[in-house]
């Protein structure tokens, strides 16, 4: 489907499928159209082109209150004038349940999120984390089957975000819901999603399970978004059936798996930081590049080394399980090695690398 607001194209021919019970994360920077997508599915907006179907039936003409898709906005939108219990009971009541039934359902759902004891409090009396749980409970209690979460952890501080993301997924799965979880936080998406949909400027960049997206991203933008990567520009020197040779600045060559790109075409290489090793003994397997250590950064569980090549490029690599002291010193000449299979080669983006990698 596509959606335009005046001249601004919020979503451009976005098309995807979801399974029942799946937990889909929509990952993208601000302005990528994530919220628009959610609101379209919820029925709060109408697509300019295209169709939305639930269980095979088109819902384009069904109003929001009949769609069975609950929208939980980033600020939770808990009704300030109703108690927590009445907030959660709002859904069942609206769908026609009697007051008794609705309150029963509400109580039970509050039990699931472990907030039954705050039933008589008002939303503004609760902490951010509690409000999030109430918002979730309200969605779960509504009897809908699809949960649309707009940055559900966005309003919480960093520590809470880490703690709650798994609990959130657990509760959704326990209740048997299908969920679309929109976020800009790639670690969040990676750790809780069954499937990730990457959006940028209204277009789908990639779609797949987290593993696949990490290991084989569909483009340089996704590669950069999903995990820390080194990005190197080059030109295809030769291509054969089992490998592709790329010439980078200064004449060095890098071998990668076949990329289907013709000779003399510009390409961009992506190399994950953890797939590079430093070897001083001249053990050459796969690709080897010489350089000098420019900087060392201590990150707790790992150290990041910045290695400056002869041609001026700087390549970053991560070494885990180092000792108290860094294994290599600044200024040391080293050889960095990485496997051919760890190299990801992409065609050079038509509007330029900087534009392609832009977050907004």
């Amino acid at each position, binding site marked *: 489907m596509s959606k335009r607001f005046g001249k601004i194209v919020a979503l451009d021919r976005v098309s995807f499928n979801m399974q029942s019970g799946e937990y889909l994360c929509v990952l993208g920077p601000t302005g990528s159209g994530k919220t628009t997508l959610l609101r379209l599915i919820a029925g709060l907006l109408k697509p300019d082109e295209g169709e939305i179907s639930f269980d095979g039936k088109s819902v384009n003409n069904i109003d929001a209150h009949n769609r069975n898709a609950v*929208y939980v906005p980033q600020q939770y939108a808990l009704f300030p*004038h109703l108690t927590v219990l009445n907030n959660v009971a*709002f859904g069942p009541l609206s769908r*026609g349940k009697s*007051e008794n039934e609705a309150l029963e359902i509400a109580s039970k759902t509050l039990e699931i999120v472990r907030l039954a004891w705050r039933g*008589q409090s008002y939303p503004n009396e609760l902490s951010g984390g509690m409000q999030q749980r109430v918002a979730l409970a309200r969605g779960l209690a*509504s009897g809908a089957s699809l949960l649309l979460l707009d940055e559900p952890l966005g309003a919480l501080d960093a520590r809470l975000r880490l703690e709650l993301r798994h609990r959130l997924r657990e509760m959704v799965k326990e209740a048997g819901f299908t969920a679309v979880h929109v976020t800009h936080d790639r670690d969040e998406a990676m750790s809780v999603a069954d499937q990730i949909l990457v959006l940028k400027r209204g277009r789908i960049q990639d779609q797949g399970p987290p593993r696949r997206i990490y290991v084989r991203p569909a483009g340089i933008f996704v590669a950069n978004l999903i995990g820390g990567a080194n990005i190197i520009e080059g030109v295809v020197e030769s291509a054969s059936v089992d490998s592709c040779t790329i010439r980078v600045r200064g004449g060095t060559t890098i071998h990668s798996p076949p990329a289907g790109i013709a000779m003399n075409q510009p390409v961009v290489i992506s190399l994950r930081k953890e797939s590079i090793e430093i070897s001083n003994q001249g053990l050459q397997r796969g690709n080897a590049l010489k350089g000098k250590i420019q900087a060392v950064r201590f990150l707790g569980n790992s150290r990041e080394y910045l290695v400056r090549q002869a041609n001026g490029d700087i390549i970053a690599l991560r070494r885990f399980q180092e000792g108290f002291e860094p294994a290599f010193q600044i200024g040391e000449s080293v050889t960095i090695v990485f496997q051919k299979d760890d190299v990801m080669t992409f065609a050079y983006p038509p509007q330029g690398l900087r534009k392609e990698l832009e977050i907004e």
Partner: protein
Amino acid sequence: MQSTPRQTTRGPTFSHRVLLLFERLSANRAAAKLVYSSSVVFFLFIVITPAIAGIVAQLATLPNLSLTVDVSLRMRNAVVSSFIVGLVVSSLDVVAGIPLAWLIVRRRSRWTTVLDSMADIPFVIPTVALGFSILEFWSGPTGISQMLGDGPVVSAGMVLIMLLHFAFSFPVIVRVMVGELLNYRETFEVAARTLGASAFTAVRTVTLPILRPAILAAFLLALARSLSETGATIVVAGTFENGVVFVRNARDASLSAAVTIASLVLIVTSLLVFAAIKITVPRFRFAPLKVWPRLERELSRSTVAMARNISSLLVFAIFVLLPCLFIAFPAVEAVASGVLGEAFASAGPWTNYWSSMLLSYLVAVLATCINIAFGLPIALLISRNRFGRQSTRILDSLVDLPIIVPSLALGVSLSFFWGNMGALPEFWVLVLAHTTITYSYFVRAMAAAIQGIPVELEDAAKTLGAMPLRVFRKVTLPLTKYSLLSGAILVFTRSVDETGATSAVSKALKTAPVLLVEWIRGTVAVTPAERALGVGFLVLTSFLALVALRLIAFRKEKT
């Protein structure tokens, strides 16, 4: 442990079923369209069109009208005076009102809350009573001239009109500014102060410019009131004529041509002046960059602040509060002199009085109900932009029309329109006139309140399965309850107060304020005691409305 209420399960009751039916209806696109379009139709055809059509009809008769030279000279002077008085008074009100609002907001205490309520008093007392009170205070034998010796301090005339308008527009400024200041984030001022600006400089160069739109809005409201007010102005005018007084005199003298032309001129000039101010002033980008550090630091001292507060309190007390409350004295005297029995026995002039009071309140109740019923959908349309950008903007500007145009002039146009229509009895023309004039108050109050509710709340409710009527009943309405009530009370008090249009529209029927104007001016012979008592009763009933409003507000603050 949470306990759920134990009730035997009952099937849906009848009222429950009816409610469900309406809810399902509200989800029906056609039904919703019907409700909205009937409100728009009501607005366009009952509120706007009669006014405009009346004006057009008047214009059509123009070629056949002629004025004698001195009448047209009088008219020109009168209209010009209206604007001079209006602009001067509104400026003075802004200058005097802002410091008081500042005091109320920045020095929150029990006393300033009392001050806040007192500042509302001129707003609540019907303007006729206000006029009478001010007349007695400044120029009556029992007023302050008692203290100062010979003769009236200020006789009826232009200055007295200015004093009157200053008093009754004062609460408008204070209300608007208090509201703005309460919402204003002091972070800007704090930033300025930590950058080295003295308090005075920070306020002058940061706060006031940011508050400029609100100040302008308050100014325009005060101006509108000044141009429009009829009853009290007539009472204190004496031989002086501003636009409104002129029209009234012309009508009394049966100079119908003058009435028509003058009211047209007033309407057109009001619209032009308002449009001009609204368009030009916001464009006027004056960023006060010049700072006089030493002078302004002196002005920031607490002694200066104290002097400022004392002087604004004095101005408020002498020029606003005391003149308004002065009415109490003659009223109490009147009670003491035993006129009360006569009044309740409905003897003599009192028969007309009570029927007028009844009429006033009946019309007010009807106008309020009609405005709520037809105004709510319009408020929803405007605040949620359901109509499309352009149409909403047009609707928005049109809603303000009845306020900008002086009510007397509007009344003349309305009676033209309905008079030519013939069939409608005077009572209903009166009701429609009052509805038209008070329309904006309710719609504005509701629209502002609805806009204050984040759209997310309604969106979330929708996706939880709530149909439009339910969203309105269970989410929008509870959160705007206060504004709905205060909008309704605004409409009610304004309608009871209304003199201008009423006197233009109705020949036989007289509402209470119109009758009282006659009592005060002496066209109906009554004793001073009767006069005072009559005014006193009107004030009392309006005061009760204010108390009711405050009680409701207090209850809201408690939750």
